[in-house]
């Protein structure tokens, strides 16, 4: 790994970083698809992908080739501009979210003071994309999916932000690298010990924000066939897919930076600890997906409004008191 801070010009630094992030997002998509299918397979006591390459390791590549090669169909009556803009709007901010993430001690694209805010702002754009996709597809199922997605995202954005406030109160910073620095390498020095409730709320909200089961209501295939992306084919669908996995990584990365000490770890701190934590959390997300039934829509909203928002407010209050005293 190169030390990004040694590159003199910030523009060159950002360009190289962007290329790196793009490569990471693409690679991550492949790894996640493979992991997801293997985890699902082994939980269900079957091998998962097995035929393409040794232990099916090339299967995601084959899938990607298939998706790229497929015809992109615009349904009759759909608004073509909005329809094809939606996957791009979904995918582009996902890349921006990676920029302020400190992967390692020196491995950070842009070190800005409002890194956290930046990520939260960019990740919220996903709602718009899903809404557009559902609306412009001229499909009733997509429309229902979009409607669900807006309600769900709006509801879960609030506890997501509220659960992060105690961290900001404790560390006094919005800079992700600094927040990492305030935590030590050992698990008991991580913020999750001080803020277990915030961690749980945050993590559950990540599930809802990224539309993962058991909160995958916008795409709920047994109810809405495929929800907002019912009509998408080829890379249109592929981009939604990539974006979903990217947001999952962003969510897990935030969780590991804010609560689990980021790249800091016992013995030797470095980017490997960061990736380890991120992928461990990703595996938990997959594990959960293949275990639970889906919740119902009103239950999902009830959970946000009746449980998570009051609880996270309470958490802020207690934290503020403790910090002040």
């Amino acid at each position, binding site marked *: 790994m190169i030390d990004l801070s040694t590159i003199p010009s910030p523009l060159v630094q950002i360009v190289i970083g962007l290329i790196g992030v793009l490569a990471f997002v693409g690679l991550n998509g492949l790894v996640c698809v493979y992991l997801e299918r293997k985890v699902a397979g*082994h939980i269900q*006591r079957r*091998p998962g992908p*097995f035929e393409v390459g040794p232990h099916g390791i090339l299967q995601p590549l084959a899938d990607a080739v298939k998706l790229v090669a497929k015809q992109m169909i615009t349904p009759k009556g759909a608004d073509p501009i909005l329809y094809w803009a939606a996957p791009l709007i979904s995918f582009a901010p996902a890349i921006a979210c990676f920029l302020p993430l400190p992967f390692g001690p020196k491995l950070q694209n842009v070190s800005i003071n409002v890194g956290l805010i930046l990520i939260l702002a960019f990740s919220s754009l996903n709602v718009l994309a899903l809404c557009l996709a559902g609306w412009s597809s001229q499909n009733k199922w997509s429309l229902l999916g979009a409607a669900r997605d807006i309600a769900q995202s709006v509801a879960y954005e609030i506890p997501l932000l509220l659960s992060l406030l105690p961290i900001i109160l404790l560390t006094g910073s919005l800079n992700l690298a600094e927040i990492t620095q305030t935590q030590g390498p050992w698990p008991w020095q991580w913020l999750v010990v001080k803020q277990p409730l915030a961690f749980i709320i945050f993590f559950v909200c990540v599930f809802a924000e990224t539309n993962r089961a058991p909160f995958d209501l916008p795409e709920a295939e047994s109810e809405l066939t495929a929800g907002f992306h019912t009509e998408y084919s080829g890379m249109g669908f592929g981009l939604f897919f990539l974006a979903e996995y990217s947001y999952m990584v962003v969510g897990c990365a935030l969780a590991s930076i804010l609560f689990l000490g980021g790249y800091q770890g016992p013995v030797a701190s470095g980017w490997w600890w960061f990736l380890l934590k991120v992928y461990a959390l990703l595996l938990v997300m997959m*594990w959960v997906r293949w275990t*639970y039934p889906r919740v119902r829509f009103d239950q999902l909203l009830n959970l946000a409004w009746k449980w998570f928002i009051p609880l996270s407010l309470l958490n802020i209050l207690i934290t503020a008191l403790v910090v002040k005293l």
Partner: protein
Amino acid sequence: MIGSKLKETFDGVVSLLIGLKITFKNFLKPNLTVHYPRKTVKPEELTGYRGHIELVPKPENPFVPRCIGCGLCRDICPSGCIEVRSKRIAEEKEIHTPHFGLQDTPLDLTRKVAPPQKTKIEIVSFELNYNYCSLCGLCVQNCPAGSLRFSKDIYLASFSSRDFEFDLLKRLEKQAQARLKEEEEWTK
């Protein structure tokens, strides 16, 4: 009120964790899938399996089926997928020439002297259209000669439906040849 609500929530969370525990345990257990082209089902697991029907040869001659050509299987088949054709052929019997003392008589006595002609049934063709077969087993059960049985062809696949129109006589012949070959090799 709040107490029961909290208890319910707590139990709910516990149930969620139990679910995770069960799936994790299963995650660690070995796969159950049979990787088909590399592994196949053991033959003893195929006991009772009904593949398509095939002919049973006579014990003394593996090339000739036991079939007596009665056509019962064809009649009883719900899908009408069996076609049997047979013909009666006279068995060649030597004709006893009349006594030499009578040879000069003008009467044609040969017919009277010859014993009644015996006929036997030869199966000309026995075709099965497996595309329509519903594997009910009525033909096997009702065959009076015990000439039908189920094959164990479990891995039967093809791109063309024509491949499932079987000539069972040919199949029997092939099986008999394979058997002979096997026996030869065995004796060697």
